């Protein structure tokens, strides 16, 4: 017994001692980058679209840089947990974040304090515009019909796509404001995302869904659902039959995006290395094929261009949040 007690004490002291010693730091001017495994943080669950894109980049980065690259799903809090993990990671370029659309909206909604300025943006890898999607047997043939229906019975048309105040809810709120409607003229039923909303739509429990066309691709291609309009500058390739809301005279664009970022204060040489490597991957045929197979929109903006895009997104969504009366 005495022996085990002594051992216990010894082990504990050993632990204390080891805790006190700081782990050795590798000099990071970027010359030896990468010197350990890389991690891509995905703020959404395994199996979803963002996870699939993250895993594609992990695989390609591993081949390009020769270090094992792992995808870690840090889910929850409407994306806040994963985005925060990316911002607070050690700024040595070994931890990347697959940031999403929510980074542009969640600080405005009071979910998180994070903005794009807490990161060093590397490059945008995807953009999918918001779209209004209905059942194939819906009486509405165009977005004009939908607006007429909303005007005829305010608060009776039911839509979903995310939680109330979530990304796709803001997209449709902005659309309604641009069309001269009140935000409350549509009854938004909260769900956890596009997949459960599509189930509700197919079951006839709601009238329309606001999400990207890619998220409803299998139902659209099999003829169960139909895109009414897409909130983009131009029609989306692969869904050429779906008109833009601009064609109906409504000046509104809502873009969901995905992009890779690293923590602020990552040394410039490392950022440059990562940008160059990632740009090669994002412009490769393999990536184009992958995006096409998944019906994701291919959109690459590197460095400054990506930063400017993020700043513009921020301004756009702040305006919508204020106008819709969503600000806390």
């Amino acid at each position, binding site marked *: 017994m005495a022996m*085990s007690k002594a051992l*216990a004490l010894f082990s504990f002291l*050993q*632990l204390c001692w*080891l805790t006190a010693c700081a782990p*050795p730091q590798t000099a990071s001017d970027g010359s030896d980058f990468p010197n350990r495994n890389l991690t891509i943080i995905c703020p959404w669950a395994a199996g979803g679209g963002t996870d699939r894109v993250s895993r594609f980049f992990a695989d390609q980065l591993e081949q390009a840089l020769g270090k094992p690259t792992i995808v870690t799903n840090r889910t929850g809090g409407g994306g806040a947990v994963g985005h925060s993990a990316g911002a607070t990671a050690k700024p040595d370029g070994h931890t990347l974040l697959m940031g999403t659309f929510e980074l542009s909206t969640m600080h405005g909604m009071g979910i998180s304090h994070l903005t794009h300025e807490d990161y060093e943006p590397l490059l945008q890898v995807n953009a999918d515009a918001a779209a209004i999607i209905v059942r194939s047997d819906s009486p509405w043939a165009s977005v004009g019909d939908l607006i007429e229906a909303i005007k005829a019975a305010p608060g009776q048309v039911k839509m979903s796509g995310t939680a*109330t105040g979530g990304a796709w809810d803001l997209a449709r709120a902005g659309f309604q404001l641009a069309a001269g409607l009140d935000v409350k003229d549509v009854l938004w039923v909260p769900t956890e995302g596009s997949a459960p909303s599509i189930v509700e739509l197919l079951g006839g429990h709601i009238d329309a869904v606001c999400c990207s066309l890619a998220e409803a691709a299998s139902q659209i291609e099999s003829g169960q659902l139909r895109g009414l309009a897409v909130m983009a500058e131009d029609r989306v390739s692969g869904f050429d039959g779906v008109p833009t809301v601009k064609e109906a005279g409504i000046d509104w664009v809502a873009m969901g995006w995905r992009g890779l970022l690293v923590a602020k204060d990552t040394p410039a040489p490392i950022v440059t290395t990562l940008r160059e490597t990632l740009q090669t991957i994002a412009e490769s045929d393999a990536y184009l094929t992958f995006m096409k197979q998944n019906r994701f929109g291919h959109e690459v903006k590197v460095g400054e261009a990506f930063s400017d895009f993020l700043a513009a997104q921020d301004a756009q969504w702040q305006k919508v949040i204020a106008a819709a*009366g969503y600000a*806390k």
Partner: protein
Amino acid sequence: MSGSPLLDKLRAYSLSGFFVSLGITAIILALRIPKTGFQSEYDPGPAAVPALMGLSLTLGGLYQGLLAWRHSETTSPLHLKAFWILAGGLVAYAVAMPSVGFALSTVTLVTWMATWLGSRWWMSLLFALGIVLLVQILFGQLFKVPLPQGVLGLPF
């Protein structure tokens, strides 16, 4: 440790005390959950369910207290010392692992714990090395979980 009547009393009421205090705290905190401007008028709101659960815990806890008062439900006394030693060891392990690394902290904890539970120290050490190797192969290689590296800069 079972002799003191005061301790026996405390033990008898600890469950009810736990639920009542938790319930009241939950109600107070739930009432302070901020309201959003855009919440639907038909939505009972984010505070409704937590407040209701807090109320249930309070009432149920009070009922447990009443039972304890009427029957003085007794639980057998514990070797609490062993409990605190183990709990302390685990906390120290979890605190140390991020900086010490998985391999070293685990070898230390397993060697200590197995010896404490009654095996010879060299056997515990062998067992500890085996466990670290197994976890490293399973998690590190097969399941692709990055375990904390720590001071030695070992691959795990």
